[in-house]
């Protein structure tokens, strides 16, 4: 659907007529216009930044920042106007009428803005503009060639995104003259707190990696990929990575309580789409550490900045082109798919070509590959890159298979991912536990002695745990118990080695160090949660009538009653279950506008376990299908994710990044004074 500016103007006058010339009535047109101005700002930004840096026109670069500001302002205006169209139920706008309804509570009207493709992509470009603005403000102290090229690259990227938005996904498109009177409503699955916060955080992470990418490109063009470059890039990468971490964690939590299965990760293509950049980003933040501290791994680090952001774009392609089967996918549209594929191709191809041309000129320092911290970080990188490859192959294999066989369709099941991923993470945990003792260049062997004792202690605890698990009267397969025991042992070892290092550490404990500890402990917490909840949880599916009682793991679940409850835009059958002293209220909701049925699980959350009840469908004789679960330590999965996120943020606040800014500031003042 192409809309030229003249069409827009025509529509604008028509609508002005129709709405008696009120300014708000033209909101969508103004929004569209604002997005176009945003595009112009992005183009000017790219030209001023790149050309200014290349031709040594300092003033061009210095003025490019104002276009980053203009870009942000125009996109905020566009976004606010779209929000307004939703709040005012402006059903002449196609996007509003397809995703909203007068009965929707106001906060879901706001979050419906990013509930489907067009609006969520507007949010994407807005967040992109936000990051660009942040770099333009905070990065003022950078050498101007770097500053210009970073901003120029960010401008180029948003030029591509805004072209995509305006060309294929305009959220401001009107449906005149026959304006519908009833909105189709927001997909009920998305009418939830999780959807209000999950996409913005996730996008902040996705898009945030564009900053690392831009620094990579700027470093390549300028031939400057030294320790200072890494020090500039690190905080930005960490923040984006922390956003992505919390975004994925929230998504998992949302899937857990909203889909009614009690599952928290499905290896769905769209989940994988967000997970791959996270894995690559994790490799990147560790590789950046080596580049900053030892000036090593330079060409590898910059390749990772390209790889990580390319995976973000690949994710956008997977989600928005509909090429893969997924519960999350937006509606299929070939034009969008092709556009995104071109965008992906140009970005990846261009940056890799640049890499190939420039990287031979970059002399890295040889890393010490004895028993050193460098070696551990190299192992980290190898494991995470293999993990990316595993997920990538599993995600794209169905596509390749269909293309090769000429239409045969397959799917890659969770067992594939679990079988490969779990051992990888186990291996990772082993090396992670050794991290605190590893030193740069060479680690004295004696340092490993203590950590071996800690391993022994953990193994003792693991053995006790194993015996207790075997003795408990539940019929469990030995293999899965062994799996949990290994996970718990490794997690405990990791926790001990990090804690002991914290206590014994001489001298200062900078925030970067504390962030590392927190993130690694978060990994241990998450790993225990994942392993335990997968093996020790109880589940049953039964047919129950009100008044019935069922027992699960020595707990009595009493089905008390079902009542009808009216929500703002749905009618619910709400069941009441008594368990011990507490009551749970799972619901079956029928959302009226779309006539679609949703399950709302009744959950009693707990530190050690969640009680989880989900209603199935009502059966002909008045009974219900009911799924009852006890999810052991399931909260630990998300607690781990949050700890990892906080760790990443803590590291950003490390004083040395601020000192760097101050030092440059002081230098600039000194130069000026001279």
């Amino acid at each position, binding site marked *: 659907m192409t809309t030229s500016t003249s069409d827009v103007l025509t529509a604008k006058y028509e609508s002005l007529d129709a709405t008696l010339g009120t300014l708000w009535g033209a909101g969508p047109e103004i929004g569209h216009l604002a997005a176009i101005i945003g595009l112009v700002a992005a183009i000017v930004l790219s030209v001023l930044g790149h050309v200014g840096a290349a031709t040594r026109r300092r003033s061009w670069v210095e003025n490019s920042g104002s276009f980053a500001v203009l870009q942000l302002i125009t996109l905020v205006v566009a976004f606010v106007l779209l929000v307004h169209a939703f709040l005012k139920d402006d059903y002449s706008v196609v996007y509003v009428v397809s995703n909203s309804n007068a009965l929707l509570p106001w906060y879901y009207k706001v979050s419906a803005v990013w509930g489907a493709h067009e609006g969520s992509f507007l949010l994407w470009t807005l967040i992109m503009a936000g990051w660009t603005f942040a770099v333009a403000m905070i990065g003022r102290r950078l050498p101007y060639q770097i500053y210009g090229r970073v901003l120029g690259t960010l401008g180029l990227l948003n030029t591509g995104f805004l072209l995509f938005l305006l060309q294929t996904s305009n959220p401001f498109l009107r449906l005149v003259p026959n304006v519908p009177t009833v909105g189709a409503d927001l997909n009920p*699955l998305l009418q939830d707190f999780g959807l209000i916060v999950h996409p913005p955080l996730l996008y902040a992470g996705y898009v945030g990696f564009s900053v690392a990418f831009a620094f990579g490109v700027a470093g390549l063009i300028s031939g400057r990929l030294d320790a200072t470059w890494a020090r500039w890039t690190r905080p930005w990468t960490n923040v984006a990575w922390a956003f992505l971490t919390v975004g994925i964690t929230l998504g998992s939590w949302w899937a857990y309580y909203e889909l009614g299965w009690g599952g928290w990760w499905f290896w769905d293509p769209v989940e994988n789409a967000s997970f791959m950049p996270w894995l690559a980003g994790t490799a990147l933040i560790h590789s950046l550490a080596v580049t900053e501290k030892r000036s090593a791994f330079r060409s590898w680090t910059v390749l990772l900045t390209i790889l990580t952001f390319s995976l973000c774009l690949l994710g956008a392609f997977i989600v928005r082109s509909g090429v893969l*089967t997924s519960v999350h996918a937006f509606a*299929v549209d070939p034009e969008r798919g092709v556009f995104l594929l071109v965008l992906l191709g140009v970005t990846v191809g261009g940056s890799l070509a640049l890499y190939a041309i420039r990287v031979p000129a970059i002399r890295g320092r040889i890393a010490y590959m004895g028993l050193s911290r460098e070696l551990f970080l190299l192992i980290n990188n190898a494991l995470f890159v293999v993990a990316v490859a595993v997920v990538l*192959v599993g995600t794209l294999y169905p596509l390749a*298979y269909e293309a090769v066989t000429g239409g045969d369709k397959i799917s890659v099941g969770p067992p594939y991912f679990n079988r*490969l991923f779990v051992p990888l993470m186990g291996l990772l945990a082993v090396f992670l536990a050794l991290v605190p003792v590893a030193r740069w260049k060479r680690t004295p062997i004696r340092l490993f002695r203590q950590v071996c004792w800690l391993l022994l202690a953990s193994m003792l605890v693991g053995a006790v745990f194993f015996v207790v698990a075997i003795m408990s009267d539940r019929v469990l397969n030995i293999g899965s118990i062994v799996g949990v025991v290994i996970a718990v042992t490794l997690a405990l070892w990791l926790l001990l080695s990090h804690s002991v290092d914290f206590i014994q550490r001489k001298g200062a404990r900078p925030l970067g160090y504390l962030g590392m500890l927190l993130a690694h402990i978060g990994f241990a917490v998450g790993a225990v949660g994942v392993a335990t909840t997968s093996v020790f949880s109880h589940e049953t599916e039964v047919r129950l009538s009100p008044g019935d009682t069922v027992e699960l793991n020595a707990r009595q679940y009493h089905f008390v009653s079902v009542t009808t409850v009216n929500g703002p835009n749905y009618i619910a059958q709400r069941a009441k279950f008594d368990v011990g002293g507490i009551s749970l209220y799972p619901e079956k909701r029928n959302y009226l506008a779309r006539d679609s*049925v*949703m399950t709302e699980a009744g959950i009693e959350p707990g530190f050690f376990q969640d009680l989880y009840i989900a209603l199935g469908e009502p059966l002909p004789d008045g009974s219900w299908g009911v799924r009852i679960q006890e999810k052991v330590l399931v909260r630990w999965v998300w607690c781990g994710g949050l700890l990892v996120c906080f760790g990443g943020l803590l590291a950003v606040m490390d004083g040395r990044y601020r000192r760097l800014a101050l030092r440059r500031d002081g230098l600039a003042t000194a130069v000026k004074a001279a």
Partner: protein
Amino acid sequence: MSPLRKQRLAAVLFILFGSGLTIGVVLFALQENVDLFYEPQKVVGGDAPIAKRIRAGGMVEKDSLVYEPEGLGVSFVLSDLRGSRFEVRYKGLLPGLFREGQGVLVVGQLDTSRVFYAKEVLAKHDENYMPPELVGMGSES
């Protein structure tokens, strides 16, 4: 060899060995855990293997959903709206968006009389969204 070259050689060997191992393991795991998808025509026609985990899909035929009087067993008929139809039996909760006249995917095994015993039933999560496997079939809704 100079130490530098030695190190480079080691790195190259390490990368070759690592990627070879990875590719091998990945291919092995893929072979074990891939489910083929069959349309109703192939399920009926005999192309689909018996007693092997597969995926199938189709439209749930109107008035074909039958609940067993006890327990959570159900059966329904999937069709491609072009004359091929097969019976599915499933024990458990159907997804919230399961409905007669709509497309669903089932994962499970066929028995010798070509009845599909489903372990999982997946319904569309959104009426605008159609599992790509079913796109060719057209829809009543």
